[in-house]
């Protein structure tokens, strides 16, 4: 019964939407033109980065909050996981030494790529998100090569790194609010401020994304 209703609803939705999408008049507001006009005042040359960190920077601030929040929730639900000594008997096959050597070689390269992406983001595709994701991928690779253990509970330095990027962003927001509007950058400092925010975000995003993986992959107790 439920199955039939859901499938029927889904099919109806597809048919209705496909029908309604076809003869659509052009949009009355053209934001890509507005973005292009204001690009010089945004502090960066790449339009997507301008939208993410200037025109709609407030979205990004809240989005980082969502990501940090997800990490905190994961910490909060697993805190009393039974970390029993005998549970850590490893059933995984021994790690390939070739993989370890490879990881040691590739990871510095990935960090370099991340720095490049961060820097490139101001004028071409790239930016803090992609750079952070590459950093996180490096951490996952290190973990798979057993060069980086899973997290149990982050210490104060790690917490500082996790929340630091968000706090820098928040601080820029608070200072700009005191001087006018939230996340309104003075024209001549816009580029520098965006780079500051993005650098903080790259580190924190990398740590948070890696943390999502490293926290989930901790040996979460045993059913027995």
């Amino acid at each position, binding site marked *: 019964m439920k199955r039939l209703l859901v499938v029927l609803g889904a099919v109806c939705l597809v048919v209705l939407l496909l029908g309604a999408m076809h003869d659509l008049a052009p949009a009355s507001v053209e934001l890509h033109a507005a973005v292009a006009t204001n690009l010089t005042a945004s502090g960066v040359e790449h339009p997507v980065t301008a939208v993410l960190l200037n025109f709609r920077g407030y979205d990004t601030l809240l989005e980082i*909050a969502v990501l940090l929040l997800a990490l905190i929730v994961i910490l909060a639900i697993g805190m009393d996981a039974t970390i029993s000594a005998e549970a850590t008997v490893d059933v995984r096959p021994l790690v390939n030494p070739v993989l370890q050597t490879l990881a040691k070689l590739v990871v510095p390269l990935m960090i370099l790529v991340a720095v490049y992406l961060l820097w490139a983001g101001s004028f071409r595709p790239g930016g803090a998100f992609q750079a952070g994701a590459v950093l996180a991928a490096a951490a996952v690779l290190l973990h798979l090569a057993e060069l980086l253990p899973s997290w149990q509970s982050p210490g104060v330095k790690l917490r500082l790194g*996790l929340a630091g990027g968000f706090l820098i962003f928040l601080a820029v927001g608070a200072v700009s609010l005191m001087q006018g*509007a939230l996340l309104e950058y003075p024209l001549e400092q816009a580029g520098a401020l965006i780079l500051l925010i993005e650098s903080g975000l790259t580190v924190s995003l990398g740590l948070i994304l890696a943390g999502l993986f490293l926290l989930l992959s901790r040996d979460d107790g045993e059913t027995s």
Partner: protein
Amino acid sequence: MMVWLILLPLLWASLAFMLGPSRGVWLSIVGLAAQLWLAFALAAEIVGSGAAMHAVGGWGAPLGIDLVADGLSAAMLLLTQCIALPLAVYAHAYFKRDDPATTYFWPLVGFLLAGLNALFLSTDLFNIYVTLELLGLAAVGLVAAGGGAQQIAAALRYLFATLVGSGAYLLGVALIYGTYGTVSTVTLVSLIGADAPDLVWIAGGLMVLGLMLKTALFPFHFWLPPAHGGAPAPVSALLSAVVVKASFYLVLRLWIGPFSSLTVVASLVVWFPALLGTLAVFWGSYQAIRAERLKMLIAYSTVAQLGYLFLIFPLLASAGALQAGIMQAFAHGLAKAAMFAAAGTLIKATGQEMVAGLAGVAERLPVTLFAFGLAGITLMGLPPSAGFLAKWQLIELALSQQHWVIAFVVLVGGLLAAVYVFRVLRQAFLLAPAGSVVTPVPRTLEWTAFGLAAASVLLGLRGVELMQLVGVT
């Protein structure tokens, strides 16, 4: 001023996280007190000089994001902060020091409040989506934190419901952006006319349905009782009192904002939420009357009380319907926070989760039981409570437009509420069975619940000010 209501909770939430597990209580309480002050100041300001606007980044919509505080949003902000501060004090006394639920309780509460405050102020449909996710994930985290299998299962059910709800909402936003090229509600009001293409109708339907799922309106209520009934008492109180109201607020905003010309064309559409609301009142009350666990009873009562909120939709054309809805949101918010807080105290003291286990609490915990009774008065809608004011206005409006069905539902709903409230009170006044022990509880638990309950009744006397505030545009 309004922006600080968003930045402040984000700030203390992340600082509390940096302080470490189970830390940050006082930071949070100071932050919440400051927020309460800000909410009052904001309300006073806009009563004096009209709605306030803040263009984030200085760009202005549609390129940037605008935050607007009008009467409706200021009232919701006020409600949220008024409930959050006492509940934080309550939570501090409620949790034992080593309770696993408290490891990151304060950061989660901070992000939850930031999500709520940001949602009430935003006028950008996509930005609202981000606030919805912030709110939803924080709420799921609070339900799950430190819990056992049942709580985790309830949290998962809640998570999937909230994700599908915001997914449908986001698809609606995508269709709106595709059609008009903007997601600013202020710009959209003038763009969406009665001749809007079919796609906009579908988008509106998806958004409203998604938000109804998040509000737990019947028949989308399935996730609410296990989540609200299974979470720790302070969390249940916070979720039932304000979190579900946030998505109701959005439905209302969309209905009287960007989609107002659509609802005028299709006059029958206004009866759809009212019909679901009616069913919610009856079904929720019925389940509350049958419930065996005390917190499940209160959670089903939330399902019923949320129904009233949707009864205002056919009446929105006339002045005063909005006020009646917000008054009901305040009445239920304060009363339900008090009721869950009182229930938490009762369960802690008696060690009994069942309604049947309450015998004898009347003489042992009179303050808490009195708080429960006062909150019950508001839910039933007896004078002079805020619940009475809300229902009175609703009935008056319904009768003036010959919608006697709505008046009937409100009256019967009040009677049904009386049945489940008295079921608890009757049990409480029975003699305690021999050998039952009542562990002493901190006074703070008793008096915060009492304060919230008293506020829900006394607000009825200051209703005029609130209604005046809601009217500011």
